[in-house]
């Protein structure tokens, strides 16, 4: 609880993801699922019916044979800052941006599963529970108590491991720190990335590593022209990689396994 007399210094948590460092190992995806009690895939699920709050796509320069070069791009909820597309469409306030953190939150228990927000999201970062969640017997012992399991028929998505943010704040309170300062914490994917390709931090903190990386020359954001002001910044020294930020070009119709 914040004391109204003390102005709260609002944080703007965001990420700077170095695509050139991403080996596409998938550790972030698994760590995310572990942290957020995301169920394993139902037998009938595929890459269009699954739930992957963070998903690593394989992108290429469109070249052929020797000219072909690929890279891996982790895509999670971009935590849009400006007129967040999904927030405005939700009919019953199940989506909401926390001004104190800039995190776009999804309230599964308020969601009626109309999926309007999914249609609204240009990053396909929202996932619907098509099946009742199911785990092998006993695996519920390994649940993270800071995150509530969802039920069938609702939408869910990345919330920057909000449970960890709660825990960090609680810890700070226990240590008697003032609650007007943003707390430092690390989402599961950033913690799990073996190459430290994902840098997470408060973008308002100009001196911070993440903010600096986000300001860098090689940094870009997906579909920036849509003016959604995403808080996920990508970094690549390769020019062709930076071009993935733009609108799609008609495909070459290859039978390709994209990530």
């Amino acid at each position, binding site marked *: 609880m914040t004391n109204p007399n003390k102005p709260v210094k609002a944080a703007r948590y965001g990420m700077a993801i170095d695509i050139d460092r991403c080996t596409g190992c998938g550790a972030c995806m698994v760590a995310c699922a572990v942290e957020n009690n995301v169920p394993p895939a139902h037998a009938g699920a595929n890459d269009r019916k699954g739930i992957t709050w963070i998903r690593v796509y394989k992108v290429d320069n469109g070249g052929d044979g020797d000219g072909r070069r690929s890279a891996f791009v982790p895509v999670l909820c971009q935590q849009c800052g400006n007129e967040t597309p999904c927030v405005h469409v939700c009919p019953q306030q199940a989506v909401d941006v926390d001004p104190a953190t800039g995190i776009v939150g999804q309230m599964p228990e308020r969601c009626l599963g*109309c999926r309007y927000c*999914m249609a609204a999201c240009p990053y396909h970062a929202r996932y619907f529970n098509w099946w009742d969640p199911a785990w092998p017997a006993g695996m519920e012992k390994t649940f993270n108590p800071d995150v509530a399991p969802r039920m069938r028929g609702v939408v869910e998505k990345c919330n920057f491991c909000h449970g960890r943010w709660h825990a960090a704040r609680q810890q700070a309170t226990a240590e008697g720190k003032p609650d007007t300062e943003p707390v430092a914490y690390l989402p599961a994917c950033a913690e799990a990335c073996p190459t430290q390709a994902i840098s997470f931090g408060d973008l308002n903190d100009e001196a911070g590593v993440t903010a600096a990386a986000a300001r860098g020359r090689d940094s870009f954001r997906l579909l920036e022209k849509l003016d959604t002001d995403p808080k996920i910044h990508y970094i690549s020294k390769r020019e062709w990689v930076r071009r993935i930020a733009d*609108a799609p070009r008609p*495909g070459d119709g290859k039978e390709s396994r*994209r990530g």
Partner: protein
Amino acid sequence: MANAMSDQADKELISRGLKRCSTPRFVLWMLPWVALLIFGLYAAGLCLVKGLNQTNMDNRFAFGLWIFLDLTVIALGAGAFFTGFLVYILKLRELRAVINSAVVIGLVCYSGAVAVLMVDVGQPLRAWFTFWYPNVHSMLTEVTFCITCYLTVLAIEYLPIVLKNRKLREVPAFLVFEFQLHKLTYVLAGVGTFLSFFHQGSLGGLYGVLRGRPFAFREGFFVWPSIFFLFIISAAAVGPSFILLTTCLVQKISRKRLVRVEVLRLLGRISGLMLAVYVLAKTVDTLIWINRTSPERGFPASQYYSWNPFGTWILFAEIVLFGLVPALVLLTPRLRARTGWLVAAAAMACGGVALNRFVMTVQTLALPTLSFDRFLSYAPSWQETGTFLAVVAYGVLVYSFSFRYFRLFPDERELQAAVPPTDTREADPILAGRY
């Protein structure tokens, strides 16, 4: 014996002076639709009990057949409010001949759409949250509120038609009630028009506001994107056409003259007029979108039409083939005078609006937004189709029932004497279950 008695009881329900087919024949006609309804309800039940994994929708195709058909059906149902508007507000008396029928059609379309929406959401038990914790910025909230309210209005408008039934009139209380309701008609028509005006628009707004979907996104006036208004006009344009179609269909099936042909022509003319306005507005909007809105958001409009099968042909079909052409036909008196042309044009108009709704819903979702995702295809599962067929069956049942026991066409009695329409083609035996 008992059969004869029930037959007798049944006859007593039918308004005086109206000829209707025998009870067994009526039952025979209803049976297949009942069967279809039951099948559909089973499909819908599966989706409710087992969850939406029964459908072929997925995270990328979050909306599918159902939303497309809801939008279409509601547009077609717009005839109810628009005719009401014409009759009671603009005092076009001639259209009284179809107003009752229009109300029934409207009721059927709207209640059907709402029913399907209930299946479409993942947690129907929480649907009422929208009323309790509404997000006023959401187009969907606007839609939900207006549609439910308007559905109530339609129900109230439907009531007097029911109460006029021969048997029910015997209850004096009902008579009084019906009389009171009549005083309300004008108010209801006004309210209905107002509500419909909004939700028809918001249905377009649903997609027009999707800033993340440049294909659908439109800038707008005040809070409403331009599509908002396009949807209203197109709905108003296609509403009368649909009434025209249904009326002709009923005439054909029941082999009776129900309305004067002038009424149909008038409907056609109005429809054509609105359609013309719509086509004009749509063209302007499309041009602005292609040259400004879309490019400004980093999406050259050309690429939308470079993903097969959605080539530029769809744009042409939507605006010219199923927009301009029927509009011109309906506006040309000589063509309008020919029933064949009239009906064909009306059908085309309906098709055009349906196509527009299809483009707005399905194509919007099929087109990729990220440079590294694919163009996606989607085909509804049998559960999805079944659920929709349930609505069709429900519609036919309700309409047939109303047609048999209530007076949907006030002029029918006078027209009894006159010769049936000059069409002698033998309709399909089941359809021809002469009422």
